[in-house]
């Protein structure tokens, strides 16, 4: 933080971008700005965008960049506190009571009646409900991490509304109340990423507490850069053609348009096949890497030749 305030914000953002690039993540200005603001204002980032544009990747790259552990919480319907926050180690508690059973008479030695025995027991306090018996789940783990962590709450839109409300306390104050222990507050607030695929509208209360970053499909240049950094073996001519082809594919009326991750898969496959440039036949046989619906493949098949021709012409 102190480092950040010394430099001008612009410089910090520029260096962040470079560092992310070193870690293999090509960030746009917006993404780098979001990252900077999240740290400067100590606020979580809510990332929205179509699947496969690198929402989760951003969190991973950030954890590498900041050299902090990445703690990931995958959301799903029915996710509740005991899986997200903490749980008591019941087994351990039971075991300990069994072990201590024999020692009980020693401990209560000298107690003349029940009142004294109870008083003696009280002196031991709530050992069984102390931190030693807490099983931390991702959220608590992130708060306990002394030097801070990167917390990724993935696909928040898949979780229930109740869970979303439950997150509010953590996201605002970086603290959480455990009835038996008290309030746990983060020593160093973690950098929090929430991702959403927009399968349902996220509540306003949650949105208000976050910075909102929308990652769209990458532009031509950016996508090419991403491919080149991720797959250095790919011939340059081919990478240009690949990007051209995918970009034109996105303009078609498809059920699910290919995203960056699909482009990367396809490009990797093409390198494996030792392709040097796009051929309609080759494209047809590998189209299932890009398009995930049979309808889409059938719809695109007749146009492949034209698309490939254009892709080669433009490169």
């Amino acid at each position, binding site marked *: 933080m102190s480092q950040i305030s010394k430099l001008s*914000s612009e410089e910090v953002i520029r260096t962040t971008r470079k560092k992310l690039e070193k870690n293999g993540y090509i960030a746009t200005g917006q993404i780098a700005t979001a990252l900077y603001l999240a740290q400067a204002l100590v606020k979580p980032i809510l990332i929205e965008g179509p699947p496969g544009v690198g929402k989760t990747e951003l969190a991973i790259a950030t954890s590498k960049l900041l050299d902090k552990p990445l703690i990931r919480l995958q959301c799903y319907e029915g996710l509740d506190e005991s899986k997200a926050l903490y749980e008591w180690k019941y087994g351990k508690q*039971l075991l300990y009571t069994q072990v201590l059973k024999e020692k009980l008479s020693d401990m209560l030695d000298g107690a003349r009646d029940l009142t004294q025995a109870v008083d003696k027991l009280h002196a031991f306090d709530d050992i069984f409900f102390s931190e030693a018996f807490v099983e931390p789940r991702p959220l608590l783990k992130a708060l306990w991490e002394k030097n801070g962590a990167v917390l990724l709450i993935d696909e928040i839109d898949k979780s229930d*509304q109740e869970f979303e409300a439950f997150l509010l306390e953590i996201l605002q104050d970086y603290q959480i109340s455990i009835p038996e222990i008290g309030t746990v507050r983060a020593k160093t607030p973690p950098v929090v990423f929430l991702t959403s695929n927009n399968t349902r509208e996220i509540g306003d209360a949650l949105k208000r507490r976050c*910075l909102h970053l929308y990652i769209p499909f990458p532009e031509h240049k950016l996508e090419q850069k991403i491919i080149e950094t991720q797959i250095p073996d790919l011939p340059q001519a081919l990478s240009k053609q690949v990007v051209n082809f995918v970009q034109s594919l996105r303009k078609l009326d498809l059920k699910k348009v290919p995203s960056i991750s699909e482009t990367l898969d396809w490009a990797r496959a093409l390198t494996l096949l030792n392709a040097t440039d796009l051929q309609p036949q080759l494209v047809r046989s590998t189209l299932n890497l890009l398009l995930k619906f049979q309808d889409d493949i059938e719809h695109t098949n007749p146009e492949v030749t034209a698309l490939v021709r254009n892709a080669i012409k433009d490169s």
Partner: protein
Amino acid sequence: MLPDFIKALRASNVAVSTAESIDANKVLTTIGIENKLLLKYSLSMALAKGIDDKKRFDECFDVFFNQNTQPHLITNAVPLLSLEFTDESRNTTDTLGSSEGETLLSILKTEDKVALQQLLAAAAQDVQLQNIRIFTQRGVYMRRILEKIGIDSVDEHLYQRSSDDQEKSNFTTLKNLKASLIEDVANIVEKSLLLYTANSANNLREEILQKTALARIEVRDFKVMKQLVTKLAKKLTSIHSRRRRRAKRGHLDVRQTIRKNIQYDGVMFDTVWKRIQIDRPKVIALCDVSGSVSQVARFLLLFLYSVSEIIPKVRSFAFSNYLGEVTGLFESSSAEVALAETIRLWGSGSTDYGGALSELERLVGDEIDHRTTVLILGDARSNYGDSGHLALRRIHNRAKRVIWLNPEPRSFWNTGDSEMKKLGACCDKVDPCRTLNHLERIISDIARTAT
């Protein structure tokens, strides 16, 4: 500046809460305002929290911040060097001093763009330009700003010089400058008007459309109506998508409890209660598509298919003298195309309620169960034929509920060939359905009783 910008954002339908404006302030202090692109990115993260909001934010940002940066005097400025105002030459470029007129003159003389810009901005703020509401206020605000920056003294100056032959060329230059200055001010006022009132007209229009009888809505408003329906559908979806499961307190789910407590060595620590899985409602919509009712049918079907998230199972049928299923049509193509096709296929002929209702019973009678809501839209005018109330009675006995929507006002029911009395008796609910507001209430009602 920030409060004004937020005001402009709210005017263009981006919901900004107080907490968010505080955030924006923090953003402003960390980022600064030197780099405009950076500022845009950062503010957009703090203020616009959705894809649509982002788009509106971008537009608003561009208009707002361009207004403050580029007085267009700069571009068509004529070289001013020959002008000599020896008597008044002062180097102060202070904005809005006690002698505004002189400041303005000196600014014009020195071509100090930054100072002019500041002067204009300060004047706009002084006259509270952000309160502009309607286009007829343009003139007033222009005049006020011009007065504020001291156009009078320029006029005076011009007046004095006009008598002097020597200064003829200077005179014309100054006159041109003044003209372009006025143009600048007009631009500023125009942009503010755009910025702060862009949506109030739209909002008014939407409000009126919501109350207008659906049958009277003009073709030119269909586009707005469609957006409106989408908006309402989104609202309903977010309201009703919440309550999906409800714990049935007091009923222990033994199987689940045993399963859950295996991890604690079978000691029953955690209890699991039985839950009621709330079913999404099944809706069967039957629409009369003859004549005037078809308009209402259009919006009813459009609405029903827009809330597919909370009412996923909709089967729709259309009839006038024959009945046919149109579910596939509405699912595969846009509402306009589907409706035109529906009317072409089923819309001709006089309505036959008896035939339609018994046909409906024959087609989907077996599918109607205690979860099904049957929605019937029609004016119940049977042309003195069979009203079909017997078939409707049978449907009613099977279904969860039968709702009749009548696009005619209540006072018209049971007049002439209207069979509302007979048919209404076989329904759980009879509602007039004339405007979008009615529609919203009805759909919300279906979704609510489903939970």
